[in-house]
Each structure stands twice: as C-alpha cells, then as structure tokens.
C-alpha cells in the first residue's frame, strides 16, 4: 500500500511532464509544418552557418 502512495504520484508527475512538453512544443510552433520538419533534418551545413531551427514565432 505504501509503495502505491509513492508510485502513483510519480507516474502522474511523469505523465504531466509529457503533457506539458507537448503543449509547449505545440505553442512554440513545432507542429505547424510537419512536412518541412521531416525534410529539414536532411540539410547539411557544409556551406552555411548553422541555422537556428526553432526561432520563436513572433
């Protein structure tokens, strides 16, 4: 019984952490362009400065 009191809060906390991470990434526009995101990983930076790929919107 006492292990439940520890484990359930831990499980919920981890779940909430995941939820918060998702909501944050949604808000910062990472889900706006799924097709572009899939392709951007293939850009190599031989001939340019590394790009800031998650510049904040606005």
């Amino acid at each position, binding site marked *: 019984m006492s292990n439940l009191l520890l484990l359930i809060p831990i499980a919920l906390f981890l779940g909430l952490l995941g939820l918060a991470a*998702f*909501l944050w990434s949604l808000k910062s526009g990472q889900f706006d362009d799924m097709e*572009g995101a899939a*392709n951007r990983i293939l*850009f190599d930076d031989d*001939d*340019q400065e590394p790009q800031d790929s998650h*510049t904040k919107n*606005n």
Partner: protein
Amino acid sequence: MTTPNTCHHCGDPVTSMSPAGPDFCCRGCAGAFALLGDLGLKSYYSRRSIDPKTRPLRPDTDEIAAINFTDLVSTDDKGIHHLNLMVDGIHCAACVWLIETLLQKNPSVLHARVNMTTRRLRMAWNGGIADVDELVKPVLQMGYRLIPFDPAVLEQATKARNSELLRCLAVAGFAAGNVMLLSVSVWAGYFQGMGGATRDLFHWISALIALPAAAYAGIPFYRSAWGAIRNRRVNMDVPISLGVILALGMSLAETMRGGPHAYFDSAITLLFFLLVGRYLDSRARGQARSAAEHLLSLNARSVTVLDDDGTRRLIAPDKAKPGMIVIVAAGERIGIDGEILDGQSDIDTSLITGESIPNTAKPGTSVFAGTTNISAPLRIRVTATGQTTLLAEIVRLMENAEQGRAKYVALADRVAKSYAPVVHILSGTTFLGWWLIGGIGWQDALMNAIAVLIITCPCALALAVPVVQVIATGRLLRAGILVKSATALERLTSIRGVIFDKTGTLTTGKPELISNTENEGSLELAASIAANSSHPLSRALVRAAGNVTPIANVSEHPGQGLSAELPGGMVRLGSRAFCGIAENADLSSHVAGPEIWLQEPGRAAVRFVFRDAPRHDAEQVIETLSARGFDISLLSGDRPVTVSQLAETLGIRDWKAQLSPADKANEIARRAEDGKCDLMVGDGINDAPALAAAHASMSPASAAEISQNVADIVFQGDRLSAVIEAIDVAKKSDRLVRQNFMLSFGYNLITIPLAVSGMVTPLVAAIAMSSSSLIVIANALRLRSGSDKPIIEDRAPLPVRAQEAGAPSV
C-alpha cells in the same frame, strides 16, 4: 534537330532560339545561376529534385518589378518588421533551404522560415520597411513567385481552432491513459478482492484527473451543444455533452458514498475518441481550404495606375477610383471596369460572357474586370468601382441565390435530432420503471438510468461521419480535388442532374486548329509568322505546327493581324478584312468558327478555322454520367451556333445558349422547384450565381476567383473526370456512413437492454464502447483501400502536394 539541352537552372528544354546560349533557356535563368555561383550556393543544384508538377523556376523579369511588398508589412514595438508571403515554385526541401539561406545572407534579416506544408514564408528584418524589395530580390531572381498575404484574413480562424482541438486532445489523451490505468486495477480488483479503501482511493485519484481534464477537453463539445440548445435545435454534441457530464457527476457521487462503480474512464475515453475524430476532420478540411486559398492568392494581381505626372504605381484593384487611368499590358488580366482611352487590342471575355472568341477593342469600348487583354497594351479610364461594377452586380445575384438555397442540415445532425429524444426518454423510463415498479431505491434506479445514457452515448455514432469524411477528403485531395464545404460530399450524393458551363469547363478555353487539306502546306509559314504574337489564335497555330522558328521582320497590327516582309513580298496573316478578302468570298469548307487568313502574294488566300476544343475526356465523362442516369445539361453564355456544335459533339441533348448570369441561376432555381437537385460545374464569373444556387457545385482551378470561392469543390488539372471521381467517392462514403450508423445502432440494440436491466458495469461499458468505435473506424478505412486508380486514363499533373490526410491512429 539534335536533342535539346535542358536549362541548368529551370530544367526546361533549351531551344535553338535561346538568347542565353546552349546552357540556359533565357537570360533570367542564366542570371539566377550566376547569382548562386557568386553566393557560393551552387550546391542547391545537386540537392534539389525537380517536381515536374510544379511551375518551373523561370525568373520573370516583368514580375519582379510588379509586386508591392510594403503594403502588408507589420512592425512590432521593437521596430522589427514582419511580412508573410505565399511562395510559388517550391519543388522540394532544397527550395526551402535555398530561400531561407538567400534571405539570411543579408545581415538585416532576423528570421526567415518557409513552412513547407502551407508553402508560406515568414520573414522579419531590421531597418526600413522599403528594404523588403531589396531583401526578397534574390529569391525572385531565382524564379520563385512571392505574394504577400494577410495572415489575419487567411488562416487564423482555422489554425486557432486546430490548435485548440490539439490541446484538448493532448489533455484528454493524458487523462484517459492515466484513468484507464487506475480503472484496470479496479476491474482486476473485482476478481482478486481489492479492499474497499484501495478502490475508493483509486476512484478519488481518477476523479482528480478526470474532472478537470473533462472540464477542459470537453469545451468544444459543450460550446457547440450550448449553441444548438440556445437556438432550439439538437445536434450530435448535445447527447455527448449530457452523457459526459452525467457520467462524471454520477461517478463522483458514487465515489463519495464509497460505491463500487465509477465511470470516469468511460467519460474521458469517450472525449478522447471524439476529439481524435474532430481533429482529423478539421485538419483534412483545413488542408483542402489552404490549398484552395493558395491557388486563389496566386491569381490576385494589382493594377498599374498612371498618375498625372506620368509615374506608374501599383495599387490593389479595390483602391482604384473612377477617373484614374490604368495601364494594362498585353496578356494581363484587366482588374477594373472602364473605358478604353488609347490602344487597339483583343479582349478575351470568356470568364464573363462565356464567349470563346476574343472581341476586338478600340478607344471607346467598355471593358470589365475579369477579362484579359490579349494583343497590345491599353490605357483604360476607370468608370466604376466597388458596388457599381459588373462584378459587384454578380456578387449581389450570387448572394440572392445563396439565400434561396435551402439550409442544408448535415446527416449526422438529422440523425441526432431523432436519436437524442429516444435516448432521453429511454433513460427516463428506466429510472421511473426501476423506482416505481422495480421497487429499488431511487439512487440505484438513477444509476441504471445513467448507465443507459452512457452506453447509448453516441461515441461510434459521432465518429461514424467524421472518420469517413476525413478519409474521403484525403483521398480526393491526393487526386487534386479540394473539398471545401463540410457537407459537399453529402449533398453530392443526392444530385439527379449535372449542369455544365461551356467555355473553360467542358472545353479547355483554348482554341485549336481544325486541320484540313486546304491549309496543310501553308501551316508552317503561317505558324512561323504567328510565333511572334501572343494572340490565342496565333498560339494555336504554333501549337498545331509543332516546332517552328519565328521569322523576323514581322509587325503586329492589334485587332487585325500580322504582316511579314519576306523576299517574295508582303505576307499578311489575320482577319478577313486585314487580308483583303471579300465578306462573301466562296469558301471551300463551311466549318464555322473563329478564323484567320493567310495572304501570300500571287497565291490564293488560305483559311485557318479554329474551334474551342472540348477537354480530352469530356466526351467520356458525359457518356459515363448519362449511362449512370444523370440528366446532363449545358448552359452557356456563348452564341447558339457554337453551343449547339459542342452539344452535338459531346452528345448533350439539353442545351441553352446566350444566357445571362441571372438566367443561369434562374434556370437552376426553376429546376430545383421541380424537386430536382443539380450539380453545377462552371468556371466563369457569369457562372457564380448559378454555382451558388445549385444543390452542389464544382469549379476547375482555372476558374475565376469568385467562382472558386463559391464552389463547394475545386478540382485541379485538365481532367473533367474529377466530376465523376467526386461523385463516386461521395457515394461510397455515403454508403460507409450509413453502414456505420447501422453498426452503431446494432451495437445499441444489444447493449441497451443490458443497460436497462441494470447489468452494465463500468467494465462492460468500456469494452462495448471501445470495440464499437474500433469497428466503425475499421469500416471507414475501407474507403481508403478502395481503388485509387484513375477512372479515365491519363491523369493530369497535380500542382498541390497533397499531404496524407492520415488515418486515425486510435
């Protein structure tokens, strides 16, 4: 001839006539290639893959000067300027990389990011607003077209809705997962003897998660249900909201009194499933709509105004005032209503009147917005703007027609309307029956009544329509057919007749040479003269002759024809009068249609006759449609001769010619009064009221802006068979929706008696609900696996990269 080289920049074949040597097709491309070399970005060419479906990257020198970028720039309080641009010509990820890099080479650019899904560019920079012209110049020089747009107008509403649904979905998903974890423990506890205290603890924790989550994630449903109730209607969201709220309330009461059954998991899982359906639905339609918006804004042009002091500037057409003088270049769309001051040209009025032959225009002629100036530049004095233009008149007609269209109620809402009362009466009867006749306590009776509500809560029912819709819209999107209206597919299933417009819909809107022995020998000469002109008939001659070399020393006489100084003397190519042929000259062939004549010194004049050729699959489409029992009609604004000719070729018996826009709409309204539902397919401005009046409407992507806006469905490419494809998919999805309804009802038929008799526990409810949802989704997926092969061979290219609409992943 040797095999043609391909241009190093745009990839198109290079003709021997190219001004930029054997490696490039034009100077613009050569310049673009050199610029990339200077900037050290040549690696673009090795990493790109050219998509033949998109516009080639051909820099257009006129275009670069013609767009006003400063209008829609917004500046924030830190002095940073922002601009949103639509990009045309993106082939692959390398284009995204190139555009971003080109912009970021400039130190004042703070941010430049292309969204590959929507093909839109956001950029931010320091410095002056007017710098933008300089900043985007390299991108334009590469051949991309950039069109500024106002994000507030275009996408904000759908985007906000989409991200709200996604947030709700995330919260519901989190809560459903955790509550289910606890519920499974409780269910296992039934059989293994879990202690009452542990069970209550688990119920309390579930309540703690489920109540706030449901309060948040259910907002889209509560809002829609509340809106419906306030208007004294019932939609699907009413029983959903009621079911969720009652289930949570009852479970909370159970938890407080330490009862064995709580339905937290059912309520929150229900919300999760429904949100999945809602989100996919909204995203699929959002994609179709954004593709349609993209097409439209690429057509939007500004007008060139000539000020009194002789300077030219570009303004939006709606900012033109009567009395202003506007310059329209050859080949340009006229943006205003006005009167020609200066210049002689031909005007293509097909979008307004449906006439396929250009009219001659000279000073004094009235021209209308939406027509195209063909052969020579014109100066036009603006006579009408805003509410007084022909276009505004058509918009008024269209609005009237839309009011006449009966308010269509979606099938799901019609089902809900009869379903909801049945459910509520059933659950009321259960309560009264157990309490008064069954003789148990009112709390237990209420438990049973609420179990009925939960078990009948239309989870599968509410998924039945959206899932099918998502898959159908996604499938059509991949075929280049954009479904804009939510109920378009439902309405398509009930049509009995199909009405076509002529020019631009059944036909391609481009003239085509009717070749015969009479003109065979002279075609080459005529075409090499015609290659110097952009008149549609000249272009048709060149197309018919194939590979021709334009000859020099040709002068164009707008509205009349072309003349060429050849060693043998003056050769004329043009109208009958221009070539000096008597009106009553004997014709060896009596084919009617637009014509041009070729007059060579010392030889008999040769006549070339053209016709507006039907789309290559038009005949098959008409045949297929009539074979399936649809009534086919043709309503055109063109002259009876041309209309009857086409109707005969295509086998259409019911045709009407010389109709005004109002006539077309009235004709459809008259048929609707007879109880006939029609699908209208049209492209012209003159079709817009008819498109609005019809039960369902489609228009090609080449259609006038206003028609694309009003049409339920927009199809891309040259195939008319999109009409059949849309009807097919609509029929198939209708069948699947009905099957899904049947499945849901069948499931209720089994579970309702269980619930009424008080035998449903949360475990039973969870199993029944999930399995019925899965069956409904699996059934809908059959639409996806259906034949994706073309109905009629030879698919036209699809300019929109249709992203997978995606199957639900539950």
